[in-house]
């Protein structure tokens, strides 16, 4: 792309937008009706323009977008938070990590130590500490610990003393265990879990080897995208089968040990390797970058002394995937390198927030302050909103509520999904009353554990709502463009949310926070290793998994599945929703055909899908 100086770009953008007929600034004139909210279209078009290149967190594009947003907020009448000179809240984050030259040396008895330093033989895990550790070696099987609360009884470390040792574990989980056992063990087989378990038992280093009986046998674990700022308190590397052979040279071969463990029998234990010692040097180079939240407010119209929780917050993330996206991109191969413009994700949400701010700015009476938060680095882990609630310029306990907007520009059939309604008993009555006039076909979801910034505010015990019109075929692709946004309905969403914000501003007492228990279903599933090549679509309230597409050449396509099919059963597991589906993935075996029952139109059909390994 061409380089612009930041200031020039901001001016250009503002100017470009100002020429559009419906620009927000044009409506702030005295002639505009007091109730009119700024239309959302110009905001979306500016944010989702090629110039802003997809607004990747920490990039020059994101800085330019932040400048544009600050200028728009200024025009709408918002100002920097009290005690602040500008609207930016900067934070640093890890934008990527690579191996910084890790090594491993194995000494067995009196033989000379074997040193491995090639990338194919030893790789630091992305969350490893930078450290050099030498110690005796203990093999701890799969290194899996199922919490006692699960009532299952599986602890790879139960009979082993690993204190100050180098712990060698197998990647994944027992291969031959029955479906139910695999389903449980898979949940605790993430490498971070294994590292944590080893560290808690006093181990100094974790060495992961992919067993000969597992998918990706003998290869190292590719460095995962990880936004961790620092290591997780243990040196952790993965090693090749050559290193594995050196470790197990003097005793039971690894293949035999794995075979015993693969039964899933919890009484099969690992063992110490007498006389074997390893030196591990783990090195991770983390690339640090700075991103900015744009935070402003509209002050209350009267002093807020005596008002309980005198702030109401509205927010949306403004970053997207940029051009060279991380694992988040779903672009087809031929689109690699194109800007992901993110019109729906999440220029639409930002536009809604700006429209709400504009509407409330014209309101003569505001009992509470309106905080406006436009977050960055959401796409790589809700980092912006987490930075806000981690060091809040306004204490979280002063927030009466937070309203979040993420992908609100692609309404279908008048359907609006409102999430996190379980965070306060105040929400249902407010939504019911406001929606009588707004007239959306509402779907209400109590769960606040959503993959968007509302999660951060729920964790800070702020009563929250999150609005979305759902995912679609252009999700996380360069084709998520401004011309596909339904502006009329986006304006309606903003108007409804402004009405909610108005009600909350007046509410005395403010909404009371209710803690929603996180169901096992929504726990992060980073351990999944199966690749089926299915792209689930989004809609509400029906049974099955609707496919929004299939990955070209993937197992689903090879099985004859296509966009629009609804998977209702896989490998004997009934599928009623996406959680059932991801759970069922744990039970599949790579390379082993699984029966899939699906609906095509009204036809009930059957096919066989052969899952592949995910690297």
């Amino acid at each position, binding site marked *: 792309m061409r380089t612009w100086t930041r200031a020039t770009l901001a001016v250009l953008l503002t100017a470009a937008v100002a020429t559009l007929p419906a620009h927000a600034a044009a409506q702030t004139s005295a002639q505009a009706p007091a109730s009119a909210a700024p239309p959302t279209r110009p905001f979306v078009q500016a944010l989702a323009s090629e110039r802003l290149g997809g607004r990747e967190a920490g990039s020059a594009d994101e800085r330019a977008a932040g400048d544009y947003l600050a200028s728009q907020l200024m025009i709408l009448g918002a100002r920097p938070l009290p005690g602040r000179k500008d609207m930016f809240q900067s934070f640093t984050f890890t934008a990527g990590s690579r191996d910084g030259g890790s090594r491993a040396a194995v000494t067995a008895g009196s033989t000379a130590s074997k040193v491995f330093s090639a990338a194919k033989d030893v790789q630091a895990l992305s969350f490893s500490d930078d450290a050099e550790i030498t110690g005796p070696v203990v093999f701890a099987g799969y290194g899996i610990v199922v919490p006692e609360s699960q009532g299952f009884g599986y602890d790879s470390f139960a009979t082993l003393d690993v204190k100050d040792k180098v712990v060698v574990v197998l990647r994944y989980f027992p291969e031959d265990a029955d479906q139910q056992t695999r389903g449980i063990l898979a949940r605790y087989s993430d490498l971070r879990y294994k590292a944590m378990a080893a560290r808690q038992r006093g181990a100094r280093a974790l060495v992961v080897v992919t067993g000969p009986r597992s998918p990706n046998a003998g290869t190292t674990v590719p460095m995962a995208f990880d936004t961790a700022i620092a290591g997780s308190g243990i040196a952790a590397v993965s090693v090749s089968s050559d290193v594995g052979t050196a470790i197990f040279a003097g005793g039971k071969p690894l293949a035999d040990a794995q075979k015993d463990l693969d039964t899933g029998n919890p009484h099969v234990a690992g063992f110490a390797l007498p006389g074997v010692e390893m030196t591990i040097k783990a090195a991770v180079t983390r690339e640090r970058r700075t991103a900015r939240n744009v935070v402003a407010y509209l002050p209350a119209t009267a002093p807020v002394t005596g008002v309980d929780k005198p702030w109401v917050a509205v927010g949306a993330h403004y970053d997207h995937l940029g051009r060279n996206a991380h694992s*988040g991109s*779903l672009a087809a191969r031929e689109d690699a390198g194109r800007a992901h413009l993110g019109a729906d*994700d*999440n220029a639409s949400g930002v536009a809604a927030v700006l429209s709400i701010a504009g509407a409330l700015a014209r309101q003569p009476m505001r009992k509470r302050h309106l905080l406006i938060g436009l977050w960055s680095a959401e796409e*790589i*882990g809700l980092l912006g909103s987490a930075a806000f609630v981690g060091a809040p310029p306004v204490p979280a306990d002063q927030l009466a509520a937070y309203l979040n907007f993420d*992908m609100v520009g692609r309404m279908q*059939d*008048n359907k609006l999904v409102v999430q996190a309604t379980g965070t306060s008993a105040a929400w*249902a*009555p407010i*939504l*019911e*009353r406001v*929606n*009588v*006039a707004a*007239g*959306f*076909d509402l*779907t*209400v*979801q109590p769960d606040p554990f*959503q*993959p*968007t910034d509302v999660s951060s505010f729920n964790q800070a015990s702020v009563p929250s709502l999150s609005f*979305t019109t*759902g*995912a679609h075929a252009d*999700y*996380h692709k360069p084709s998520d463009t401004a011309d596909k946004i339904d502006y009329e309905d986006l304006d309606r969403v903003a108007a409804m949310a402004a009405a909610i914000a108005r009600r909350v501003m007046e509410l005395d007492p403010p909404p009371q926070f209710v803690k929603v228990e996180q169901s096992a279903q929504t726990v992060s*599933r*980073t351990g*999944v290793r199966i*690749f*089926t090549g*299915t*792209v*689930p*679509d*989004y*809609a*509400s*309230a*029906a*049974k*099955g998994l*609707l496919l929004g597409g299939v990955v070209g050449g*993937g197992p689903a396509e090879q099985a004859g599945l296509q966009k*629009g*099919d*609804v998977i209702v059963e896989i490998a004997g597991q009934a599928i009623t*929703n*996406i959680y059932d589906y*991801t759970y069922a*993935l744990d039970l599949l075996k790579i390379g082993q055909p699984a029966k899939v029952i699906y*609906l095509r*139109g*009204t036809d009930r059909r059957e096919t066989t899908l052969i899952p592949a390994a*995910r690297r």
Partner: protein
Amino acid sequence: MRIAIIGACVLGATCAAAAAQQVAASQEREFLTRPRRLTVEGRRAGEGYWSKDGRKLVFQSERQADNPFYQIYVMDMASGDVERVSPGAGKTTCSFFNPETGDILFSSTHHDPRSKTQQEEELKFRASGQERRYSWDYDPEMDIYVRSAKTGAYRRLTQARGYDAEASYSPDGQWIVFSSTRQAYERELSAAERKQLDTDPSFFGEIYIMRADADGSGVRRLTSVTGYDGGPFFAPDGKRIIWRRFDEQGLIADIWTMNLDGTDQRKLTDFGAMSWAPYIHPSGQYVIFASNKLGFENFELFMVDIDGKKQPVRVTYSDGFDGLPVPSPDGTQLAWTSSRGGGREGQIFLAQWNHEHALAALRAAPAR
């Protein structure tokens, strides 16, 4: 939005719409456009009836923290304001606007001294996490009340022991038709009848009519066929009454109409299923009702011409419950109770009603 990618599977989506259901949804949309959930608050809500000007809807909902039973609420269809209009204690059900005065009638047990204890027991039961099938208990304490639109004062219209409910006004506001099980408490029952009363009190339900200014006297019984007769409403011209009649086992019900004196009883449906909750469209030309013809727990809305000469036409295509349809006074909207929002509990839904399409579909329907 950040949706975890799992083997190129996009997470975070909630459920998926089955393609088959999308086809069904498009059929439903020929009658009902822009359907939407109207009530959100509370565990369940249902039976929404319109004021004469269509600006208000009166309905029942379980939404009061200290009372697990239905109370009666009025929603302002312009502002969205919702106000409770029943006393707050005991059980209530089946409200209706007086078309002339705006008074609201409903049935209630709040005079029962055991109300508070019953509320607490039910709350305790629900807190225990146990579940039981939803059932209506035909509480013999249930009596009909009317709330004055002017003063908000309540007046008790029935005194008799027995379930007095399912009441509605005539279009001129002068008459009330309702269902009651009072016969079971007025006379000596045989042993078999006593057993019947214990297991299914609705068996004794019959249709009655009284003057709207009544004090419990001058009530006339209109039906006398064995089995539950209930859910009566006046036709828009006030000349006939429509209701549902169950068989003796209480499993099969059909839609009937009759004159105001109980004569000329005519049966409109013959599904051999549970067809109930009829309401006549303001045009007077057809009836919208609910039936489980397609599955015991799958109630759908149907409609049938006012004389029942044609076969009924299916209106809704949605799993679970769709029932208790009530068209707006101008005939352009339909409020009904549905579980399509998820879970088993019903909430009130609202949609635009395509009257022209309904007439065309009825014309095209084969003869019965």
